[in-house]
């Protein structure tokens, strides 16, 4: 069995209205991998926040720009539990270094929570810039 198996690839256009459809796709797939309800909600939230960030920040709110979402099953080796790897690709602006730090939660401010939610929800959140493409990798393993 391969280490990594592509389960789903979504080609989206940047539009907040697609978020509900993506959530509807991600949650049952997370469940099929073996995540419990709470972790399925966490994964769904992380993907939602990641796409929202791409729409708002990478593309500056511009509609109709390309976003790709990949969901890969990470097969547990030697009895290890499986995981879900989520890769998001966009060709928008590179995030500024400060933006990747996120803002501290608990402060009464109306923005900056998305990255915090992503990091709290997933085991790993890594951003890379490859040429003109932003690549966001998020991984979570079944507990």
């Amino acid at each position: 069995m391969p280490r990594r198996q592509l389960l789903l690839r979504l080609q989206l256009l940047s539009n907040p209205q697609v978020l509900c459809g993506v959530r509807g796709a991600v949650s049952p797939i997370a469940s099929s991998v073996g995540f419990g309800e709470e972790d399925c909600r966490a994964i769904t939230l992380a993907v939602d926040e990641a796409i929202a960030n791409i729409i708002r920040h990478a593309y500056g709110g511009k509609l109709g720009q390309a976003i790709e979402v990949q969901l890969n099953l990470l097969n547990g080796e030697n009895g290890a539990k499986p995981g879900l790897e989520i890769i998001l690709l966009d060709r928008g602006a590179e995030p500024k270094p400060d933006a990747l730090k996120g803002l501290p939660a608990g402060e009464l401010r109306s923005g900056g929570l998305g990255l915090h939610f992503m990091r709290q929800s997933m085991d790993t959140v890594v951003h890379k810039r490859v040429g003109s493409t932003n690549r966001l990798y998020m991984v979570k393993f079944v507990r």
Partner: protein
Amino acid sequence: MQISARYLENTTIFDVIGDIDLANSPVVRKALLVELREKKIPRVIMNLQGVKYIDSSGIASLVEGLKASRDVQARFILFGLSKSAREVLQLSRLIKLFEIYENEEQALSNGSS
């Protein structure tokens, strides 16, 4: 998402049904700010029993409502949080800043204006 308003004496209750995300959180934000800043309603209550999902943009709208209520010395109350909504609010570490009740009866009787 649907949002509708009911009006009691000195109180507006917003009944929200659906997901509050980037697509529709601006509607929630605007509704709250109109009641609090423009109409200066002394007590605004959010019925979130019908909200199964809320993300950071939704939380941001609630935060703006809370800030506006403090600015105008109004009460801003939430009730009926789903497990999912409560989890997200806890994740934001803002849950203790909000006045939250289980149901409308408690919200009306405890959160008097």
